[in-house]
Structure formats: C-alpha cells, structure tokens
C-alpha cells in the first residue's frame, strides 16, 4: 500500500464523488484539488466552475484565489458571478464543496463568527461569501474538513449556510429548493452522509487505521452508523501520482 497523508486521503475520497459529466462549483484549496484530480482521472468531462466567473478552466496550477487568472486558464468562458450563481439557481450545478469553523449534525455551517453574542463576537470570521448561495442552490453540497469536537458541534454559534436545518423536511419547508442539500462530509477520519428520514449525519465509511470510536470521539454530537460501515479504499498509486505530479506539484495543499 502506498504511503499517503491525511490531506491526500481527503482529496482522493472527495474526488471519487465527482462522477464524469457532472458540474461542480469549487473554491480554492482541497476542493479545487479534488476537482482537478477527478478531471485528470476518472471524470475527464467534469465541468469546473469558480464563483467569481471562471467557467470550465484547464487549471495549470492551484489558484490562490477564486478570482485569479488561473481560474480562467484555457477556460470556455471568463464569465461573471451571476453566470455561476444563476446556473446554481436554475438547477444546473450538481456539486459544491464548502467549509466552515463549525458544522452541526444536519450539515449546517458557520463561517460568520465565534461567540454567543452577535453584537460582540469573540472572533469575527469572513461571513457567507458565496457559501450560503451554493449551499442553498447546488443539488449536492459536500464538505472536506479536519474533524474535531471544536468543529463538529452540538449547536452552531451562527448558522451561515443551510444544511438540513433542523432535520426532517425542515429544509424544504423553509423554502429551499426540493431535492437539494448536504450530501457527503469527508474528514480526516471518515466519510459521512445523512440518514434519509432524520437527515442526521451518519458514518458510511472509515479511513484505514481508524475505528468508529475515534470518529465519534472527535465529534461533539452523536453520529449515526450506516447499516454496514465500509472501509474507505486508500488512495491508489495512480491517484497519488496524479495528485502529486499534476494537481499540486508544489505541495501547496497536500503538504500544508
């Protein structure tokens, strides 16, 4: 078995979710690496969109921001934010990847602030950016994140972006597009989905070297278990080779 690190495991696991011919809206960092890896391996017809207007680029290297010219390198179009967001609103974007300082059991995300008092936060964070829009409008939202009890919390300090809200059918009742919502949470320990009725986070596969206890210990809320929890297949030699040599040759993401 090839040697790999935690970031490589997460990126590879995420890339496997992006089937050929689908459309994904990404930001910089691990999500971008996952999309590039997918495009250079199993999903050559994956269409990559960047929030600020980059449409279908052939990325020469990792972009530093979601608006720099790497995001339109050999692209089909240098468009606008409206081009991307309106495509999401029309139902033309299958996947997105988001992150946050906190996530709860329904996949709701906080990227706005830490602290109990909105007027006087302990830590002010950037806010939604395009995250609330992507989480509201893309069909399937995914998260790639390191897992610990500070991040996987019982209650968010602020709900920036919608997951399944309070679970059950609350997301659709709130008015968000039917059929959209959180899909996979990919951590350094496991891959989670959401139980179809309660919409609570559920462990579906665990990465090599870990057990359920470790996954639960690094999460402040109770995780559900899939009927049969799989072993996440480790990154293959081919996946690692493409990731290291073509996607991130300078190790900006994978060696962070």
């Amino acid at each position, binding site marked *: 078995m090839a040697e790999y690190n935690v970031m490589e495991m997460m990126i590879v696991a995420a890339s496997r979710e992006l089937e050929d011919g689908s459309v994904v809206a990404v*930001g*910089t*960092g691990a999500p971008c690496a996952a999309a590039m890896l997918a495009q250079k391996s199993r999903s050559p017809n994956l269409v990559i969109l*960047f*929030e*600020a*207007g*980059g449409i279908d680029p052939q990325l*020469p290297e990792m972009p*530093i*921001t*979601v*608006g*720099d*010219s790497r*995001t*339109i390198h050999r692209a089909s179009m*240098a*468009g*606008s*934010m*409206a081009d991307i*967001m309106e495509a999401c*609103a029309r139902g033309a974007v299958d996947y997105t990847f988001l992150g946050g300082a906190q996530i709860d059991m329904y996949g*709701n995300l906080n990227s*706005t602030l830490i602290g109990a008092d*909105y*007027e*006087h*936060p*302990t*830590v*002010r*964070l*950037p*806010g*939604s*950016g*395009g*995250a*609330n*829009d992507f989480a*509201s*409008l893309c069909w399937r939202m995914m998260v790639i994140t390191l897992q610990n009890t500070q991040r996987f919390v019982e209650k968010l300090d*602020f*709900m*920036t*972006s*919608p997951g399944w*809200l309070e679970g059950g059918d*609350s*997301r659709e009742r*709130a*008015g*968000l*597009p039917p059929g959209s919502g959180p899909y996979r949470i990919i951590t350094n320990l496991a891959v989670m989905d959401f139980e179809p009725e309660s919409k609570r986070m559920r462990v579906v596969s665990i990465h090599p070297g870990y057990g359920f206890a470790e996954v639960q210990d690094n999460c402040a809320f109770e995780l559900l278990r899939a009927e049969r929890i799989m072993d996440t297949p480790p990154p293959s030699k081919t996946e690692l080779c493409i990731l290291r040599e073509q996607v991130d040759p300078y190790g900006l993401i994978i060696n962070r």
Partner: protein
Amino acid sequence: MNIIDEGRGKLFADPDPDAARRFFRQKTRNLVSKEMPLRQAVETFVHEGGYLAIGGFGSNRTPIAACHEIVRQRVKGLAFAGHTSTHDFQVLCAGKVFNRLDVAYVVGLEARGLSSAGRRYLQSGEVEITEWTNHSMAIRLKAAAMGIPYIPCRSLMGTDTFRRSAAKLAECPFTGRRLVLLPALYPDVSIIHVHEADKYGNCRFKGISAADLELASASKRLIITTERLITNDEIRRDPYSTKIPFFLVDAVCEVPFGAYPGSMPGEYFSDEEHLMEWLAVEKDPQRFEEFLNAQIYGSADHAQYLARNGGLEKIRQLRARELLLSRD
C-alpha cells in the same frame, strides 16, 4: 404580497427607484472628458456618510490605489459593500473609513489567512453590520441596475444570515413558494479598475467580470481607474470590446499598476510576499501604524507606493508569473 418574515439587519442605502431616477436624470450623460487625477476624483466624489462599493473580486482587478487614496484623504463615516472584499477591505479598515458594513465576505484574504486588524475593527463595536451573501449582494446591484426596488432570490432561507440581513421572506404570487426579497442597492459612489479606458469613460477589461457590470450601472457616481488611457477612436474601432459605456462614468483616472499588490488579468500577478507582509505586520497595532505611516500616508501616490515595494523590477517578476513565462 404576503410577507412571512424579515431580517433585523439595517438597510444602509435607499432602494427607492424614483429617487435614483431623479438622480440619474440630472447626472450628465454627455460625451465630455472626465479625465482627472485620482486625488481629485476621490475629493470630488467620495464624501463622508456616503455608500461606497469597490469593483473586482477580492485581490483581483481591485482598485487598490483608489482605496489608498481614500485612506490618505482620511475620509470617514462611509457605508461599505463588503462583497468579497479582501485586500481592499484590509486597506479601508486600516483607515477606519467606514462605520456601516454590508457583509458578504470580509476580514479574510481567502487562502492567505485572516486580517487581524480587520477583525479587531469589526470586533470593536464601532461598525454596524448587516449580513448578506455574494450572490445576494450582486443581485441587489442588478435590481438597482434594472431600476426596480427589489429582486427575489432563493438563497438565505432558514439561516442566521437571513435573520441578520435586511431582506424579507415572502410568498411568491405566482407559485406560492417562499422567496427572499432583496432590496436594490444604489451605491453613492463606486470605483472599478480596468485595463483600458478613453477620457470619456468607455472601458475595456479582461478576465472575469465578477459583479462589475451590475455595479457600474447601479452606482450613482462611478470612478474608473485604468491601467492605460486609450483614444476614443480606438474604442469606436472595436465597440465589441467595450464593457462599461461612458455615460455611467464620472471620473477617469490613469493609474498604471493600480490593482497592485493585487493581480490584473493578463498584466501582473498578485504580490503574495507583500500581501503576507500586510497580514504579518497587522498583528501588532504599533508596528501596523508605523507600516501605514510609511506605506500609505508616507506615499504621495501609487507610483511611490510601488517604488517602495520593488518598483518596475517587481512588476516584471509579477508579469512573468501572471503569464506563466517559466513554463513556456
């Protein structure tokens, strides 16, 4: 229309389309020269208490020279559109130029990290904040550009972002579905950086447009900073390339490398070293004050700022990086 709920955030700009129509009626739409120094443009159009918006996206094609000039002139009391505002936000925060803020994305410099001075300013309680998203801010500008008072969207629902916005939740009169209504945003003054413009304000730029076309139309006053002035004859030779027409524009300022230390598509990449220096020096308020005194208050203009940070040799390196010359 049945209003189901509303955010409790404050609205910092009047969405009334008829007030805007009265303004646009008296604004000159003639083909007259608007060329002027950046200092004069900021003096003339950026006023205490007004609502300011900045074009570009994050550190890309952002009018940083103009942000410096606003800080240098010690303008205060603005309201500001923080729609993916990264290094521009950092600069404007350094001068504490605004005390009311529409937030979509602020404080962060994307993957580079968070601005500690920006964070301190927002945590100080000196700034009133209303929350939005990138898409909702962009289409608030679109509504203004369309001359309508609001625009519906399907983001924000069910979240604290909605609760802290100034949007309303309504029932759609056609489908019965829930919709979020966003108030039109007419900034008092906006600044957009472009590659080429003539003295009348006809503009060309390359790369993504982010929300700049909506912003240009929505703004009551529009300052253009341009890498290069070109002739009106050149504009008319190739009208397909014009992105912003002259009649939206109030000032045209030639500012070479005006997006530095941010990037300009096809011209120069961002100066990552200098941006990291900003992030590092901000951590210590005392050192940051000295840094600002030297870098911004101590520079008469953008040319001096650039000279202080590597000058044309730095630009040559950033151009090589932007164009991926090492891979050719």
